[in-house]
């Protein structure tokens, strides 16, 4: 077994930064210059209060970087890399502020012993909230190094410059010293307090430029390690007996047949029944021999009765936005539109299933886990082991996709419990069936909108009620004098009495649903008004940023006024905002009237995301959002009955494939002087609505439920006749 490279660092023994004195921590880290800084992520702190179960939170610092005695820069952060590319973009920021090459910046991510606490990687927050203080820390480090160089070279700071980690006198380039020489034999600890001046866009050498992924070579050679690739001496692969349905309780397990397989270790401890073996496939074979009995699940929910149930269970709403008077608005309306929209449970389906490897040595438990929130996993593991959390270390190797789904860490709990019981290192890697079963799905949701047009074809009122999709993207951004936005029902969590299984955050949580409903409703009104959907939006945007972004998409698409939809062209528009970014999307579709199949031929997407750190990386995220969005828009829907998840593998759950690939054209507005916004999620929110509107434009049918699958298209077509 090769050493895991995370362990090559020479500070194996250190404990979690926050549970020890800061000075002691830095002492353990070897020489160099340290800049400690705080990420002002207030949202994170609110959540953290709950996540850390009332324990005090660190307030002094939660990230730091080191310039070591070789001049190499290392950033330690609790954020993780799961394909979103922050391993590259965060390094770019540091390289630029420090004036070093991108190659000399290293990211140590998601290791709870080496990295300060972080709430987790989700919500497109890394660049927005982590970026600015990271840059400031880089700038601070540069300033400290310049001061040191000034002393060493006897040249005032303002006469010095830096290139590639070498400080030199502007007028005499031979008078120089490297960062490595400056930090050698020293240990300097600085706290970032005031705000050092950051580079201006005109000074960027690395930021706002495109780089291929920092980790690409590891990933194309198969050397990149994911949690399942961690193999420890003596490690056993565990297969756990799972219930056939959510809510089904284990009553009896007969392990006698499984036990007969050579080398199998069995565990039968109450709710945890498992078979383990040095080969995962043999463990799987043994699992098939376990005779387990379950009491049936009390759940009586299925795809047909779920919406009725959800509406009943919703309780009172919470008004999050309000203007004018709805009654007044309705009175002034010539046309009233009363529509209900539905969205389905959707799976995250990362290609890497949830995986964890746990190893307990003495008091210390080390876990390699595919997780988006290692510090939460650490608490969960500690609780399962009934130990203090400082005894647990979570290491996050590369994560094979998350999309919000790897914020639940049930596999970690299984792995640590089994490691404790068996006394061996244990790997728990979900099968695809388990991945479907335990996924915290994107919640099914209902949105009711009542709206109106006055005699001048202006929107007169907007009464918006969203059930279970939450408030992200719920408030409209159109010029409507009388409006109300109400949010009902818990969006996520383990609300067993509401949803038949866990639900949770799915890429741009709730916003896909909200944008679908809002932008369909806008199109319905535009059609009634007899106005082109592009023009109707342009006329009714309140925020000029929407006008700017839709215009950018329209120009690229070559939008020409087409008048009232349906035109038979198959064009559809949707706009929205997520994680601080603005998006406009125009698509072109074809509908096969015989099969009900939709072919998305072209997608133009314009995005305003403020300063773009890595334009290529941001483009890739947009392309990914668009292609992934085709799935929730067209086919993806979890099938379930009485607590059982009927999708057991990809044959019954259709993900986007190569043949679906439309012509994708992306535009990122040049906003280099504005703060950076989120990029991993925004472009996915408009996909469903734009396609629904395009289907209407093509064949004149209005679908109110996602996915917009062949079955519902055929049904709507036949009803139209």
């Amino acid at each position, binding site marked *: 077994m090769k050493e895991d490279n995370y362990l090559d660092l020479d500070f194996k023994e250190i404990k979690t930064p926050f549970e020890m004195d800061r000075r002691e921590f830095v002492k353990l880290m070897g020489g160099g210059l340290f800049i400690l800084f705080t990420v002002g992520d207030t949202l994170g702190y609110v959540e953290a209060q709950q996540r850390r179960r009332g324990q005090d939170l660190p307030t002094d610092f939660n990230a730091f970087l080191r310039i070591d005695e070789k001049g190499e820069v290392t950033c330690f952060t609790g954020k993780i890399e799961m394909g*979103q590319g922050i391993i590259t973009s965060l390094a770019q920021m540091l390289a630029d502020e420090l004036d070093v090459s991108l190659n000399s910046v290293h990211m140590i991510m998601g290791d709870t012993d080496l990295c300060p606490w972080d709430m987790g990687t989700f919500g497109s927050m890394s660049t927005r909230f982590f970026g600015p203080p990271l840059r400031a820390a880089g700038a601070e480090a540069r300033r400290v190094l310049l001061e040191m160089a000034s002393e060493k070279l006897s040249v005032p700071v303002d006469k010095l410059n830096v290139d590639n980690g070498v400080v030199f006198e502007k007028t005499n380039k031979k008078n120089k010293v490297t960062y490595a020489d400056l930090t050698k034999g020293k240990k300097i600890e600085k706290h970032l307090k005031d705000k050092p001046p950051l580079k201006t866009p005109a000074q960027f050498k690395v930021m706002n430029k495109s780089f291929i992924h920092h980790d690409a070579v*590891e990933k194309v050679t*198969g050397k990149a390690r994911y949690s399942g690739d961690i193999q420890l001496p003596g490690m056993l692969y565990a297969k756990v007996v799972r219930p056939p349905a959510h809510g089904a309780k284990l009553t009896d397990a007969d392990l006698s047949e499984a036990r007969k397989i050579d080398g199998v270790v069995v565990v039968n401890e109450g709710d945890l029944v498992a078979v383990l073996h040095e*080969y995962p496939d043999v463990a799987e074979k043994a699992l098939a021999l376990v005779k387990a009995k379950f009491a049936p699940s009390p759940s009586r929910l299925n795809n047909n009765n779920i919406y009725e149930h959800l509406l009943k269970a919703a309780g009172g709403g919470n008004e999050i936005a309000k203007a004018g008077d709805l009654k007044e608005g309705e009175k002034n309306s010539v046309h009233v539109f009363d529509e209900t929209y539905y969205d389905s449970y959707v799976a995250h389906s990362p290609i890497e299933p949830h995986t964890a490897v746990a190893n307990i040595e003495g008091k210390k438990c080390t876990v390699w886990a595919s997780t988006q929130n290692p510090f939460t996993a650490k608490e969960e593991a500690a609780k399962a082991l009934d130990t203090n959390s400082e005894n647990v270390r979570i290491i996050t190797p590369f994560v*094979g996709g998350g999309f919000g789904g790897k914020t639940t860490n049930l596999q970690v709990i299984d792995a640590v419990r089994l490691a404790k019981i068996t006394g061996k290192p244990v790997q728990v890697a979900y099968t*695809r069936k388990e991945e479907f079963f335990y996924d915290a799905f994107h919640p099914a949701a209902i949105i009711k909108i009542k709206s109106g047009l006055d005699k001048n074809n202006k929107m007169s009122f907007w009464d918006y009620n969203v059930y279970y999709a939450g408030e992200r993207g719920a408030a409209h951004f159109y010029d409507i004098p009388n409006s109300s936005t109400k949010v009902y029902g818990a969006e996520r969590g383990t609300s067993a009495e509401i949803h038949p299984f866990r639900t949770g955050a799915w890429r741009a949580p709730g916003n896909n649903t909200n944008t679908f409903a809002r932008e369909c409703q806008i199109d319905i009104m535009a059609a009634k008004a007899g106005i082109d959907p592009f023009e109707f939006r342009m006329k009714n945007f309140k925020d000029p940023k929407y006008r700017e972004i839709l215009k950018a998409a329209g120009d690229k698409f070559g939008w020409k006024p087409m008048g009232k939809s349906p035109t038979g062209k198959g064009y559809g528009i949707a706009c929205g905002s997520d994680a601080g970014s603005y998006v406009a999307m125009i698509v072109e579709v074809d509908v096969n009237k015989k099969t009900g199949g939709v072919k998305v031929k072209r997608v133009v997407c314009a995005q305003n995301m403020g300063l773009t750190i890595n334009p290529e990386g941001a483009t890739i995220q947009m392309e990914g959002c668009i292609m992934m969005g085709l799935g929730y828009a067209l086919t993806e829907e979890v099938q379930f009955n009485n607590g059982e998840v009927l999708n057991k593998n990809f044959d019954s759950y259709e993900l*986007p*494939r*190569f043949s679906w690939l439309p012509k994708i054209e992306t535009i990122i507005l040049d906003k280099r002087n504005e703060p950076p916004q989120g990029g991993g999620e925004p472009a996915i929110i408009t996909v469903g609505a734009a396609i629904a509107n395009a289907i209407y434009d093509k064949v004149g049918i209005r679908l109110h439920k996602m996915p917009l699958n062949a079955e519902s298209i055929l049904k709507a077509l036949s009803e139209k006749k």
Partner: protein
Amino acid sequence: MTELIEFKLNGKNVKLNVDSDRMLLWVLRTNFGLTGTKYGCGEGFCGACTVIINNEAARSCSTSMKEVKGKEVITIEGLEREGKLHPLQKAFAEKDALQCGYCTPGMIMNAYGLLKKNKKPTYSHIVDAMEDNFCRCSAHKRIVQAVQSASVKMEKEG
């Protein structure tokens, strides 16, 4: 049934006493420690486990050791030559045809199988050949571009 199975793995002759019903995927990952080949679904749907067997792309999760006997297997770890990346590996890295990278070894091996059969694939040849390999990060556009660019390079280099 345990048998002595001999085959060629990444250019070397290997033999192994193994239950011949075990699937190649797990034998590669555990007995040989070659973890570049990934599990995604275990039933032949996703392509994450794709390797080359006798010059053809095959799903190692559904190929038993019996079927491997006497054959030549290439995994992602066997593509580099003298420390140099294979043109497909290079193209995937240069075109940024990956995000999380988990599907990448399977994508590259599947494309390798395509280029063995068809040196100058068109866009639709590539789409057809890659159709049953899933990428949830949805890097499809760039994967197609990477395969195209690698095929052009390989043509030139002969």
